[in-house]
């Protein structure tokens, strides 16, 4: 066995033993790269995810809804920051990570490339998109990489209100006027399939899955989590009195789970590759926000340099 092979074996043994890997531990280069890709994409998703919801803050129907929505969008910003920090422990700089987003080299969750057309979309996002995100994120609390797992514990704890906030909106609309109920149904119609796509390509098509499972970055396959999403959400839709837009969705007694229709993978790949309804708009908004913020960052540095110079001047005077 070469030295690198023996290091890799020891590494895998630690993983198999449910030990956590910490930043200074030896790790295979591919493990590091995989995590940088995944954690940075996760962070970008939190940040870009603020855009579709932020769109409705000024138009929330009452103060209660507005407070809930602002708190949720604030949380997304915080979650992005936890994740960027976790990513930096792997030896990549914040500037580099942001640059990858702004140049389009790094991806973020495709779900945020869909528009929020009505207030009901805010309800549907909280219920379905956060519901799917929670299913994805809970197992990451046990990810083999310590800083990612710890960030995820915080995220999951804080996110527990996000989905309830959304469901409460859906509940109010579904029990409202016929027009409001129709609006809720329309939102469910548009967000259902993209939400199922959030779990990624089906297991047979997923290129990174097997290695990520072996490294315990991932604990469940895309299809397993997607199935769980369908099984959990169907009864929730029934309580709302809304219909999930899938004629093939039905309970399968034999399997003890729901059967459901085929995802439009053509649409999935088109949105991933940049041809979703809002890809260009989202990226442009993000780049603009970053560039518009440059003077704030410059001012912060100028202020700290001035304080430093002032302090140095006082120190010299005191010594003299």
């Amino acid at each position, binding site marked *: 066995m070469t030295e690198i092979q023996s290091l890799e074996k020891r590494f895998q043994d630690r993983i198999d033993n449910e*030990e*956590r890997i*910490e930043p200074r531990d030896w790790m295979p280069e591919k493990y590091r790269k995989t995590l940088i890709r995944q954690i940075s994409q996760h962070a970008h998703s939190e940040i870009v995810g603020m855009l579709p919801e932020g769109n409705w803050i000024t138009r929330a129907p009452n103060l*209660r809804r507005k*407070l809930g929505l602002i708190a949720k969008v604030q949380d997304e910003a915080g979650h992005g920051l936890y994740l960027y920090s976790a990513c930096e422990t792997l030896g990549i700089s914040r500037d580099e990570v942001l640059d990858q987003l702004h140049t389009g080299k790094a991806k973020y969750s495709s779900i945020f490339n869909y528009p929020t057309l009505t207030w009901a979309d805010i309800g549907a996002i909280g219920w379905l998109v956060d*519901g799917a995100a929670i299913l994805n994120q809970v197992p990451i609390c046990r990810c083999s990489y310590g800083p990612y797992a710890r960030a995820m514990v915080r995220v999951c704890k804080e996110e527990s*209100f996000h*989905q309830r906030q959304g469901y409460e909106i859906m509940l109010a609309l579904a029990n409202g006027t016929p027009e409001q109920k129709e609006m809720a149904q329309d939102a469910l119609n548009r967000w259902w399939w993209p939400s199922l796509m959030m779990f990624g390509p089906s297991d047979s098509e997923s290129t990174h899955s097997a290695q990520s499972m072996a490294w315990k970055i991932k604990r469940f396959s895309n299809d397993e989590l997607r199935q769980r999403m369908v099984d959990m959400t169907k009864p929730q839709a029934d309580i709302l009195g809304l219909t999930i837009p899938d004629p093939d969705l039905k309970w399968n007694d034999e399997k003890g789970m729901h059967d459901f229709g085929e995802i439009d993978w053509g649409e999935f790949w088109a949105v991933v590759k940049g041809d979703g309804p809002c890809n260009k708009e989202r990226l442009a908004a993000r780049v603009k926000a970053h560039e518009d913020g440059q003077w704030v960052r410059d001012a912060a540095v100028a202020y700290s340099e001035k304080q430093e110079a002032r302090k140095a001047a006082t120190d010299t005077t005191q010594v003299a």
Partner: protein
Amino acid sequence: MQNWPLYEVFIRSKNGLSHKHVGSLHAADADMAITNARDVYTRRKEGVSIWVVESKDIKASNPEDSEALFDPAEDKVYRHPTFYDLPDALEHM
């Protein structure tokens, strides 16, 4: 020794958990602080990793500012899941 700087010591008790503040000690430099922290704070295998940082490098919040810093979170009940009214029949949320 009176001129030795004070170091704050943080110990990771096992991989997967964060470093936690355990106390402080004086040392001539950071390397000595690690050596001493090992003897002072991990004699019973309390840790797998040690961080030391000079106490003067820690900027702490002023207790007099507590009200301004922390009270605003007090009335933001809508940041908690129990604020939202949902039917009892609803599961997995």
